[in-house]
């Protein structure tokens, strides 16, 4: 941490969590960044809980259900869907601060502002088809269990296809981030993270068959279109969260290269070379 951050501020208290937070709120120069980082960590976990545990729409059900089974599917998780997505709607806007924080990393790079702005707008757009439409459609499906099964089937398809099948925003978004990281001379992120963005972008290509297949590994619940992609996405997310934390620790609010941390433990491959 830069010396300026601690200047003229009393030492950080070691006491209770609330006192620590109060200290950071008052004196920590990096509080905006930390607000962003904690929002990312808390809300990614919260979304996980809401989608996987409460609404139980992830891992996704089979696309090949019959209309009668779909009605049953909605009935089985009636309150889960309604409460789960209500909470998603309330906290859904948190994505704005998350994406703003990630866009800031690009602004801190030695690249054009265009990268930060395009990332910000692309991911702001992504929230809608990537999350909210599914919530609305599942809510509509769950709120009237006696609806015509054919219409329920349409709602079911639309919910999952909009959620799984929204690809371009994440594809282009990852590529924007990748290009920024690879061009950057301020060492905001290591180059391998740039390449990891490419891996993530490629998984968005692999999702495409979900629009075509109703069963098998390429369907929206399939081993390739869902499970492997999810594994890549979770890795990617975990990686950028920890890299972002490191970046905030290194941040000096300058315009040049970010300083390395004192106790920087270099990557395994680099250490070996």
């Amino acid at each position, binding site marked *: 941490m830069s010396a300026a951050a601690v200047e003229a501020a009393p030492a950080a208290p070691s006491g209770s969590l609330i006192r620590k937070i109060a200290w950071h709120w008052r004196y920590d120069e990096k509080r905006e960044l930390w607000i962003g980082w904690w929002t990312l960590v808390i809300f990614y976990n919260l979304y996980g809980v809401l989608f996987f545990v409460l609404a139980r729409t992830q891992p996704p059900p089979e696309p090949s259900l019959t209309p009668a089974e779909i009605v049953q599917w909605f009935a089985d998780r009636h309150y889960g869907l309604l409460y789960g997505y209500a909470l998603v709607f309330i906290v859904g806007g948190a994505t704005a601060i998350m994406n703003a924080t990630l866009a800031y990393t690009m602004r801190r790079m030695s690249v054009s502002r265009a990268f930060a702005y395009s990332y910000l707008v692309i991911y702001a757009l992504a929230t809608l088809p990537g999350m909210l439409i599914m919530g609305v459609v599942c809510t509509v499906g769950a709120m009237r269990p006696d609806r015509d099964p054919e219409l329920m089937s349409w709602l079911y398809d639309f919910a999952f296809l909009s959620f799984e099948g929204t690809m371009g925003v994440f594809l282009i978004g990852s590529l924007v981030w990748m290009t920024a990281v690879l061009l950057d001379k301020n060492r905001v992120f290591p180059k391998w993270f740039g390449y990891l963005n490419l891996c993530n972008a490629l998984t968005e290509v692999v999702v495409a068959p979900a629009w075509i297949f109703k069963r098998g590994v390429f369907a929206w619940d399939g081993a390739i279109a869902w499970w492997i992609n999810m594994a890549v996405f979770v890795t990617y997310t975990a990686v950028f969260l920890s890299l972002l934390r490191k970046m905030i620790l290194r941040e000096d609010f300058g315009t040049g290269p970010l300083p390395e941390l004192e106790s920087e433990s270099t990557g*395994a*491959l680099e250490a*070996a*070379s």
Partner: protein
Amino acid sequence: MQSPSDKRLLYVWLALSAITLAQLALGSRGEAASLTPNAAITSSAVVMALIKVRFIIREFMEVRHAPALLCRLTDLWIALTGVSLLGSYFIGRMI
């Protein structure tokens, strides 16, 4: 005009192509029996492919001059791929 390293690369490429042609021979064996599963052909094909992969990584990608860690990681991946491919083939056939 050939430097020693160029010659070495040429031999590697010749070896890789030779294995590929061996795979061609392997794959065209028993036209009539091509519709029955054949564990011997499958195992040979996979093993030959993995040998080629290791050749490419070691020679073309110059991992033989790389630190031990990279050598081990790439070998680990090759082993992992071999085990999962052959393992899922043989276990899958039993199920």
